[in-house]
């Protein structure tokens, strides 16, 4: 029982940054923009979050700074790819490279310093319930934010008018424009939202996952988040399933190794990727539904004709 709880807690910690970043990117892609710079925004969020928390002593300022750093990077991406209509693929890749370099530069004096963990929720009564209490009512703020975020995005995209408009912009920006919708305004807001989420995911890494700053500490998690969005065929609940599945398999394989189960460790290391892809492909088998959910204008630049 205690082991099961410990395992679940570790899985949640591993899945949360993926869930945060992927949910943000999902909204970006639903608006028709492909931002390959998730890794770069995430690593900037990590360094920003660490610095603000370390210098102020307040982990919540760290979270805020993570969001702002991510948004700063997103703004740069938006200016280039939306206002100047540069190629989104190239701009996103450049954003990742810039983010990794800039974060290393900013963070260099702070490598090896111990970070500041945000407090865990503690509701007297609820948090004391055996098993469920510590798992659901005793976690760090990022966990609750990530779940609220998924719920919020589902509600926004599928149950509100601006959400419908955003999807319309992503499906056919010409028609949306002809209807008088401010395509670029929607896209800017979506890109900034994606940056905020990626930045928050980065702050989770440097405040909760491993409370320290170290270079390249995102270690490819931004790319995993990007892949999750595609394999979840742009559906928020599937992103949730994918992120937790990935977390569960990656922690599960470590447990299998530590128990001495005789499977080659290289195969086990590859397992989270393989399992997540297989499961998400299986649940996305309905091709008509997948086509409906794929933003048709994804990755295409839009220049309004005034």
């Amino acid at each position, binding site marked *: 029982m205690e082991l099961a709880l410990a395992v679940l807690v570790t899985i949640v910690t591993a899945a949360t940054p993926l869930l945060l970043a992927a949910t943000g990117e999902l909204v970006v892609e639903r608006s028709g923009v492909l931002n390959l710079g998730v890794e770069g925004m995430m690593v900037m969020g990590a360094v920003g979050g660490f610095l603000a928390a370390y210098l102020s002593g307040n982990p919540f300022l760290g979270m805020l700074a993570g969001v702002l750093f991510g948004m700063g990077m997103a703004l740069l991406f938006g200016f280039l790819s939306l206002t100047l209509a540069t190629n989104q693929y190239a701009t996103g890749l450049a954003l990742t490279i810039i983010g990794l370099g800039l974060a290393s530069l900013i963070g260099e004096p702070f490598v090896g310093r111990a970070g500041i963990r945000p407090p865990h929720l503690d509701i007297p009564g609820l948090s004391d319930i055996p098993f469920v209490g510590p798992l659901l009512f005793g976690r760090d703020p990022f966990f609750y934010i990530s779940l609220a975020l998924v719920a919020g995005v589902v509600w926004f995209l599928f149950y509100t008018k601006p959400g419908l408009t955003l999807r319309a912009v992503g499906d056919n920006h010409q028609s949306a424009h002809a209807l008088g919708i401010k395509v670029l305004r929607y896209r800017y807001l979506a890109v900034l939202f994606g940056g905020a989420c990626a930045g928050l995911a980065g702050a989770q890494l440097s405040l909760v996952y491993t409370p*320290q700053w170290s*270079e*390249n*500490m995102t270690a490819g998690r931004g790319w995993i988040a990007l892949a999750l969005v595609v394999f979840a065929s742009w559906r928020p609940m599937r992103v949730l399933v994918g992120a937790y599945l990935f977390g569960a398999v990656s922690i599960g394989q*470590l*447990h299998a*190794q530590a128990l001495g189960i005789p499977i080659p460790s290289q195969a086990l290391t590859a397992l989270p990727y393989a399992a997540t892809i297989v499961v998400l492909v299986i649940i996305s088998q309905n091709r008509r539904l997948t086509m409906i959910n794929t933003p048709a204008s994804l990755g295409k630049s839009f220049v309004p004709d005034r």
Partner: protein
Amino acid sequence: MKKTLLALLAAGTALSLPTATPVLAQQDTAEACFVYVGSRTDGGWSQAHDMARMEVEEHFGDAVTTTFVENVAEATSEGTIERLARSGCDIVFTTSFGFMDPTLAVAERFPDVKFEHATGYKTADNMSAYNSRFYEGRFIQGQIAASISETGTAGYIASFPIPEVVQGINAFLLGAQSIDPEFSVRVVWVNSWYDPGAEADAARVLMDQGVDVITQHTDSTAPMQEAASRGIKAFGQALDQIEAGPETQLTAIIDSWGPYYIRRLEAVLDGTWESENIWDGLESGILTMAPYTNMPDDVAALAAETEEAIKAGDLVVFSGPINRQDGTEWLAEGDVADDETLLGMNFYVEGVDDQLPE
């Protein structure tokens, strides 16, 4: 001018005496280049090499200039090494096991540039191999772990199944079982030298499974930090990591490459550099142990005693009787493992509770 004369002289000698020994070419300045697999601020392996590089700069002043490239992926390192060789480096130090074949390939194409590869076993006329017997430190760590552990199980976070890492696991277990014959080690491979998140996950998983001492053969301080957050003891890696765990670090294997680099650059300047294959241990000072902290005095005394015995040559880590994992005999009583076997070590000794990845 002097260089040209020497070169002419060298050419002449080479023509008249094809079998002559290489001509000693003294030089006033040298450029030393370093290739790191990780970040130079990783708090571990690559930082240790970078600190040694700075020692070199300090020691030689203007005579030696240094250049480094960090975060070089092993798989794509050949291009980086070649660029350095082309850019005028007199000697290139490549500091990760996976750089071995790329270094050798570039060394064959650039016979006038000297290469030194850390922790491998391949050499050429212009390529040395240098290494440190880290496993001697691991043996001491094993003794400490077995002395302080209450659960009788230690967690081992491993990177890649290469001989150096396997030696470490075996030596750790041999050390531990010299204190407690029942002691076991749980091994988790993260298949990365540096991924703080994965290393922290591995530490959490091992602690969840009940280990109460953590050791690692990866480069970040994340496992130490995780151990600290749960009040469990751990060993530092490559550098004294006491800052990451003031109440956690038992000791650390400290890599001190500085004196070696200085010696080799002196040889470059004198023109006496020759390809060598060096594998030094505690006795030479190429690795040292951080202070024995956060443990009872008698354990610290035992560790210090073992360290002295290894330095004096009274204790040889891989000396018989040792069985292989499957129970067959590897070393008989009185036998000592030869370096060749150790450098290609691809099997566990008896008692390791893990299957070695092929």
